[in-house]
């Protein structure tokens, strides 16, 4: 992912180059960052969150389809599904889903922007990352207010 590539460039400046490029067996290529000793930063965090939100949205999709099926089946079944989705646990899951889809939406647009070859320098990537984190929360709150 674009974000990670930017992150690697930054780390290479800080680490000894020789150590970065010669791995086991003297492999002459850049190696993946070792996640436990790697300093977290915004492009890295926002990149992995894209994967987490995208895949976690399957939970929301299952709930939505179940709710639709219940509504199509009978008033009793609908009452059950609606009670589950609007319970406190359901509210937490649906609010997280809302944030997840807005986050993934913004991250997806950033991904397309990166793929077109833009925004890959470190200062821009940092700003875009903050834009995703703040923008997704703003959009989530706005949606809750409007609905």
């Amino acid at each position: 992912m674009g974000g990670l590539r930017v992150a690697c460039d930054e780390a290479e400046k800080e680490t000894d180059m020789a150590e970065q490029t010669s791995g086991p067996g003297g492999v002459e290529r850049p190696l993946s960052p070792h996640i436990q000793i790697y300093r977290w930063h915004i492009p890295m965090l926002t990149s992995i969150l894209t994967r987490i939100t995208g895949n976690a949205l399957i939970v929301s999709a299952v709930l939505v389809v179940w709710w639709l099926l219940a509504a199509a089946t009978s008033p009793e079944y609908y009452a059950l599904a609606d009670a589950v989705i609007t319970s406190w646990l359901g509210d937490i899951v649906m609010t997280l889903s809302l944030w997840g889809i807005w986050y993934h939406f913004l991250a997806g647009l950033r991904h397309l922007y990166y793929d077109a070859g833009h925004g890959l320098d470190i200062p821009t990537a940092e700003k875009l990352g903050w834009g995703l984190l703040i923008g997704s929360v703003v959009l989530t709150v706005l949606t809750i207010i409007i609905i």
Partner: protein
Amino acid sequence: MRYLTDRKRAEGKGAGHSGTEHHWHMQVSAVGLALIVPTFLYVFGSALGGTHDEVLATFARPIPAILTGLVLVFGLLHFKNGAQIMIEDYWRGTTRKAALMFTTAFTYGLIATGLFALAKMAL
């Protein structure tokens, strides 16, 4: 030197051996979803928590029904191909194949179930 065209050399490359097809699908579905998902959030969010009659009335109208159908089909196909990226990054061999098959079957099952429910309410 082997007498191969550039195209022959590129075919079958990539983790999923499907060349650039997969990446192109992600880009097309991403743009499509970016256009329809915000309106869907409004429609679905408004319907959620309504009475049973209100929900039936909502999905009997063409725009909410068609929009929800589109988001279900293309959102879930986009999910299927997106989950494939993660599966190919983390697993190999039989586990990878089984995970891809399971994701594919699960996704199509969910699409079919959602469309059945929508059709039942809309017609």
